């Protein structure tokens, strides 16, 4: 009897250790992103973050698809306002590699796409004492300035390190983040953790050998913004195309005087 029990225990521990080595722990969080423009018109999109603990990596991607991808859609109230929702391969994708502290994302300049690599150490958080509960987790408040906007984030120290989109760098998972000007917010809606069978490696979909740095991206964007301001292939009833100095992130600083087309346009509207 003793021998049989020992044998069963041995079998169980072999299977148990085998299943541990052959499985991956994944934390899956669904977020709702809200982008609110200055006239209070807002757009809500659903995203999913998957953190692969053993691979020290995460992937973040859109789960809701646009009804009108890559089309200009006229605003209901304003004839002079259009919306454009880009859709294509990995457009909303962010790949984070915690092993080398890098993350990769896709950015467009005048509809041409570039892979941008960034460091995960760029976030200068200030962690405060305030706490609140989100989806059953005690979250702590942290603030930072990031590429032109001030943010407030709530992170759960009981969950692995990570966050929606590019946001990261706190000692836990960011479950809620809002810019102070209300332009951008991400709110966690669902959290689940599960195991899957271990695959050989986690696939980074980006061609990282062609990736450019954030500074190189900003330089290219500015160059293109200056060129497009006078871009007018069909002569006649048209001016150039004036790009904004950024969107969620600032690409051209407000005090940069190399690019003036946007401010000139505002002045001409006022006159």
């Amino acid at each position, binding site marked *: 009897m003793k021998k049989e029990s020992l044998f069963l225990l041995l079998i169980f521990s072999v299977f148990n250790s085998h299943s541990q080595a052959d499985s991956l722990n994944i934390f899956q969080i669904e977020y709702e992103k809200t982008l609110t423009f200055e006239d209070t018109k807002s757009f809500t999109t659903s995203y999913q973050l998957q953190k692969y603990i053993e691979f020290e990596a995460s992937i973040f991607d859109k789960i809701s698809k646009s009804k009108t991808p890559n089309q200009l859609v006229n605003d209901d109230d304003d004839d002079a306002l259009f919306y454009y929702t880009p859709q294509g391969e990995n457009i909303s994708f962010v790949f984070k590699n915690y092993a080398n502290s890098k993350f990769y994302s896709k950015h467009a300049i005048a509809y041409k796409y570039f892979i941008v690599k960034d460091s995960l150490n760029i976030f200068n958080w200030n962690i405060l004492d305030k706490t609140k509960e989100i989806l059953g987790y005690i979250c702590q408040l942290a603030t930072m300035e990031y590429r032109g906007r001030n943010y407030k984030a709530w992170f759960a120290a009981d969950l692995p390190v990570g966050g929606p989109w590019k946001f990261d760098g706190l000692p836990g998972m960011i479950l809620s983040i809002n810019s102070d000007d209300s332009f951008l917010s991400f709110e966690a809606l669902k959290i689940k953790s599960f195991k899957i069978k271990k695959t050989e490696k986690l696939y980074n979909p980006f061609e990282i050998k062609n990736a450019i740095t954030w500074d190189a991206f900003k330089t290219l964007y500015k160059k293109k913004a200056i060129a497009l301001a006078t871009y007018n292939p*069909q002569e006649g*009833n048209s001016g150039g195309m004036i790009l904004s100095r950024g969107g969620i992130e600032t690409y051209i600083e407000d005090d940069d005087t190399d690019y003036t087309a946007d401010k000139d346009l505002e002045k001409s509207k006022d006159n």
Partner: protein
Amino acid sequence: MKKLLFTFTLLVSFASFANNSVIEINEKLIETKINKVELDQECYATCSVTIRNTETGETQTVSGFGHSHLSCDLAGASCLANARANAKKKIAELNNM
């Protein structure tokens, strides 16, 4: 009866597809975005349309010009129509470059 139901379903599907795939352009004028100048009974207008990227929050603005010897309202309407057409042309060209 089945045939009739099938045809009706097909019609509804086509109608909803057509409704979703066409960019609606309402010809209502947005006065605040149009600057008009009247010279020798000719009216010249400048205006712009804005395109917002709902993913990145970036905006692009495309200007247009319009003129009419009949009225400034017509010059404004022509301007806005030109600006809209120019925005679409530019985006199509940039996408194909």
